[in-house]
């Protein structure tokens, strides 16, 4: 049963649009699926390999801009961005990894934190190349209906899920976890820690970039502040994984589901809408203190909290 769970869920999700859901619900489903890809990508690097990134917006935005610029400068369909962003993000991640992953400690977290900001400023200032704050607009989106977008992102998400599962269950995954648990021990066992950390970063960056390229196609419009923000993308990515469960297969999916729904609910309440980051921040603090391994990781503990005292014995 457990082996087939991903396939069953995938099948259910495939049938879902046929029921005739409203366009708003489809939009939410698409966002949830997109965020689970970003979450899974972050989880590979942060959860399994232990390298916390505060700048996944950099990879996301880079993917989005790759797709957007292909369309804007070369007149190609922005869907080519999904393919082109793989080498672009791969090289970009290699460079970042080469610089920051040789050192341990918080250097990497700090570098990624600055990275999103730097890319935003660069995109704002290179007006000739990126249109600056005007952003890039796709004049005609491929489909009006949301169903096909959903299928595309669902396929991408399923692909990422199985890819990450394969990686984690392979030798590579064990290397990652070894590096997270004790880098010195891993090093002394002959694992080239820098190399494997860089591999994790490349995989993570490419997957996030693909999600970004999809975002360009789906939304049809990007500008530097929507794709490179610190709180609304980088930190939400961290939250998706923290809420769902660090270093679990399903954590990012559950986390994305909760975060997207929560964001929609909070934004629809008129007075509280402006304070959604406060509530997110409080949720983040709460999760770190009480459920440090997330809902999936601390499921037993959570169930125990809600049970009456006597039932524990």
């Amino acid at each position, binding site marked *: 049963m457990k082996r087939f769970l991903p396939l069953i869920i995938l099948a259910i999700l495939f049938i879902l649009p046929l029921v005739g859901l409203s366009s708003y619900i489809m939009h939410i489903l698409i966002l949830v699926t997109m965020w689970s890809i970003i979450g899974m990508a972050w989880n590979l690097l942060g959860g399994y390999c232990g390298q916390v990134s505060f700048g996944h917006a950099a990879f996301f935005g880079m993917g989005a801009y790759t797709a957007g610029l292909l369309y804007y400068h070369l007149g190609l369909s922005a869907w080519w961005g999904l393919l082109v962003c793989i080498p672009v993000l791969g090289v970009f991640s290699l460079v970042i990894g080469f610089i920051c992953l040789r050192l341990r400690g918080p250097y990497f977290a700090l570098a990624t934190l600055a990275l999103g900001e730097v890319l935003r400023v660069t995109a704002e200032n290179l007006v000739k190349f990126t249109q600056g704050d005007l952003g890039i607009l796709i004049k005609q989106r491929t489909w009006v209906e949301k169903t096909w977008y959903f299928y595309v992102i669902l396929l991408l998400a399923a692909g990422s899920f199985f890819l990450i599962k394969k990686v984690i269950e392979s030798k590579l995954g064990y290397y990652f976890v070894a590096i997270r648990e004790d880098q010195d021990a891993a090093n002394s066992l002959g694992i080239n820690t820098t190399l494997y950390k860089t591999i994790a970063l490349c995989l993570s960056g490419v997957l996030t970039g693909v999600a970004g390229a999809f975002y360009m196609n789906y939304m049809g419009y990007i500008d530097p502040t929507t794709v490179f923000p610190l709180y609304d993308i980088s930190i939400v990515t961290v939250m998706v994984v923290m809420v769902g469960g*660090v270093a679990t297969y399903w954590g990012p999916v559950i986390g994305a589901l909760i975060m997207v729904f929560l964001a929609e609910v909070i934004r629809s309440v008129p007075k509280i809408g402006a304070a959604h980051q406060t509530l997110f921040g409080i949720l*983040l603090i709460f999760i*770190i203190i009480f459920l440090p391994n997330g809902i999936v990781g601390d499921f037993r503990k959570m169930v125990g909290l809600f049970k009456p005292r006597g039932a524990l014995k």
Partner: protein
Amino acid sequence: MAAQVELFLQTLISGFLLGGLYALIGLGMALIMGVMRIINLAHGDLMMVAMYVAYWLFTLFHIDPYLSVFVATPLLFFLGVGLQKFLINPVMKVESILPHNQVILTVGIGMVLTNLATVFFTSNYRSTPVSYASKAWYLTDYWKEAPIELSLSAPWSLSFLMAVIFTIALWFFLTKTDTGKSIRATAQDIDAAMLMGVNVGRMRVATFGIGAALVGGAGCLFIPIYYLYPTLGKQFTNIGFVITVLGGMGSTEGAIIGGLILGIFESMTATYLGMGWAPVGRFMIFVAALIFLPGGVASLLRKKRLGK
């Protein structure tokens, strides 16, 4: 040619003054980094809080921003102590997979502070229009035949001077008092400090408080010469950690030198490339420090000392 030299020297002066203020921001962060081994990513947001305190004191009670240092600094000290005691300390005890939980926690704190400021004070740009804002001293006033014209802005110089006083006070505290020595001992070797009878838990709380107070002071010194908006903290957090890395993780002398270097460098980018590129320049310094000087300025200082 004279104009070129003039521009260069003027940029150098303003960079140096800016660097003194940056050093104050970096000092607080380096102190926290040294004792707790975490980067405080809410640092700039704490500064934003102090700036709002100074702003409201000025707007409502017409208290000069330089005087509100004496209100904002203790206030921020207690805010820092509270954050450390009730949020960060509990997380240190929690078992989790990720080692960076405390850092993520500080991000959460910063997010809450920024958003609350936006909700309560709106995201309008604000400033304190002090009467001496545009006062300046000119070189030609003192030296009639000077070949070039240089100026020294009064509020900038005053802020710089106050920053120097803060730094000296901190140095005195860290080297001459018992608490200061305990904090340094904790930063050097936490286990040894504990064995020598240092109350490490209390030192952590005190350090976070002092770090917050320092950045609070920096906020008050910044407000007469800068403007204020809720998301400004992010930028100063970036500045703080670039200084911390440049200076060498947790080194206070390094933070001062790092702050001055960054201030001058940023002034240069602003003059010769344009204001908007300052964050990119900052990142370049960060990357350069990572590649060429991973131990920061502190490692150079140490090498020199050992060579003697």
